[in-house]
């Protein structure tokens, strides 16, 4: 495995990106609704202004020209001007991306931190009370509608208990000069504990809402995989040799058991990024998901096309990453 495979994967990216762009473009073409009319709403406009705006947006060109212009510009990472914000799409997306990344990462960390110990313990103490609780909880976790659960959390923790804030990402006091644009990390790097705490308080409820389904899936995967590993010959062999159970667990079983967990996590992270929009809407989280949904409603084509490309690239990269992880952790499998 090495550079060759990497290049091969990169090349695979091209038809996917092209396909995604074409599909989105065609869908937008057949979607009724005029971006100019939407932007102007009820307001009074002259015909010249309407034409001028249409020209600014490039809507006076025929479709195939628009598409090729988009493609050629995209190669230089120029995605044009957002119709709605009248600023470069790149800037608009870039300003909303860190929030989504931070939330997704937090949900991922939450899911891993909860699912791995829970899944391992459930497998080790199979059929015990803990196991049953873990199974039931994880089944609940994938059955909860996120939007409903999120609202319940807000009502309980924010409105009734006043423990946590209702919406948003951080208060004013938590202004920290950005390094990574991820508030939790930046506030630590700058030594601002108060900002860290504030950002964390805002992050808790959306993270739980977003991460719960994933935690549930990973718990079950971990448990199943751990059970599988514990039944393997080499474990029985180690037990027979007289090694302590904990030692067996940590030294031999864990690493192999976590392979499916980690690979599934890598793949599911893609759906975390995509499934963000409901959670972002409920919690007023200023991320990319909400931006994309809003863009569809106002027919903000350039932004939609750029965002979809971003998601496609992320998905392919995550899959590739999952494959690499798999081969790294499981030396018996060659890519």
């Amino acid at each position, binding site marked *: 495995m090495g550079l060759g495979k990497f290049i091969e994967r990169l090349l695979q990216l091209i*038809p996917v990106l092209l396909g995604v762009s074409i599909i989105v473009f065609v869908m*937008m073409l057949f979607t009724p609704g005029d971006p100019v009319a939407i932007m102007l709403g009820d307001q009074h406009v002259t015909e010249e202004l309407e034409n001028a705006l249409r020209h600014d947006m490039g809507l006076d060109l025929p479709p195939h020209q628009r598409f090729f212009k988009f493609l050629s510009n995209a190669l230089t990472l120029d995605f044009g001007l957002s119709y709605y914000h009248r600023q470069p799409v790149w800037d608009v997306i870039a300003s909303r991306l860190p929030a989504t990344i931070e939330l997704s990462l937090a949900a991922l960390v939450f899911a891993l931190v909860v699912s791995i110990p829970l899944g391992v313990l459930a497998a080790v103490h199979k059929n015990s009370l803990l196991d049953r609780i873990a199974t039931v909880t994880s089944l609940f976790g994938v*059955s909860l509608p996120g939007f409903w659960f999120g609202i*319940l959390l807000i*009502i309980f923790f924010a409105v009734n208990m006043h423990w946590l804030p209702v919406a948003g990402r951080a208060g004013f006091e938590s202004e920290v000069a950005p390094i990574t644009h991820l508030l939790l990390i930046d506030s630590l790097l700058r030594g601002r504990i108060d900002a860290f705490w504030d950002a964390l308080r805002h992050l808790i409820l959306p993270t739980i809402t977003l991460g719960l389904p994933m935690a549930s899936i990973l718990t079950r995967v971990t448990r199943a995989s751990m059970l599988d590993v514990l*039944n393997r010959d080499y474990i029985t062999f180690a037990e027979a040799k007289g090694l302590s159970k904990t030692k067996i667990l940590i030294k031999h079983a864990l690493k192999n058991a976590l392979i499916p967990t980690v690979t599934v996590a890598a793949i599911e992270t893609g759906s975390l990024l995509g*499934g963000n929009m409901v959670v972002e809407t409920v919690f007023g989280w200023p991320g990319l998901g909400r931006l994309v949904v809003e863009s569809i409603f106002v027919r903000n084509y350039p932004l939609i096309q750029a965002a979809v490309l971003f998601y496609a690239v992320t998905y392919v990269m995550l899959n590739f990453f999952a494959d690499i992880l798999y081969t790294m952790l499981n030396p018996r499998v060659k890519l």
Partner: protein
Amino acid sequence: MTTVTYWTGDAGTAKSETLFQRNMKLFASSRLSMFFLFITLGFVFMAIAAPLIAPHDPSDADLFRRLLPPAWMDGGDWSFPLGCDALGRDILSRIIFGSRVSIFIGVTVILVATTIGVLAGLAAGYLRGWVDIVISRLVDILLGFPYLIFAIALIAMTGPGLQNIVLALAYKEWVIPCRVVRGETLATSGVEYVEAARAMGASKSDIMLREILPNILSPVLVVSTVRMAHVIILEASLSFLGLGVQPPMASWGSMVADGRSFMLQEWWLSTFPGLAILLLVLSINVVSQGLRDAFDPRFHD
């Protein structure tokens, strides 16, 4: 043309039938699974018998009953056990009728998606070559779209409504059974009875449909039940975003959405339909977990 039944084919199918039956018996032995299977069937019954069980007409609106609290609270009325919504419609009746939408969408989307996915997966896995390349590329491209965004864009294109929601969800859903089936087909293509069938001159479609398909049904069944739960939540999310079924049709998701700005005080508008979603989806998930446990040889103690 194939009036001759090959001996190996017979044994193969006979073997898989017994295995299938054996696994199903194992499934039935789990009390948990059976319990939730009954709940699921209960919902199905609720959906079918809705006009008979619902105490009121779900579209019967009366502004004077607006936001009536549930029966056990102050101001409640036992003829409207779970209270009334913003237009004075009985919530219990709307939940009962709403089960039709959730189950219809869940079942239809999965049926359509599984049919297409299975056929595509079989073709890709068995025929290989160009067919495989095209289908696999298509799968990759569709997977690169986040689910909700694709569905929203499709509905923006076609307009809302029950039919369009089913299509919007099915458009992406088929890739999942397709991938599973393709993988399984690749694995079984080299198996003996398939080789034998090929040697006997069976046509490609015969092989795909008669030999391979019956043997991969179990994973398809398991995946379908898991995905059904997921699809029901997706439909609820779409309704929540405002792209759901048309009024006065009640879908649980749109009920939660309609009630969400009332959550602070009149919590019953969103809570009960939300619980309905939770219960149905949970039941399906438990059943699918049971199926998985029953069919997975590793768990046969």
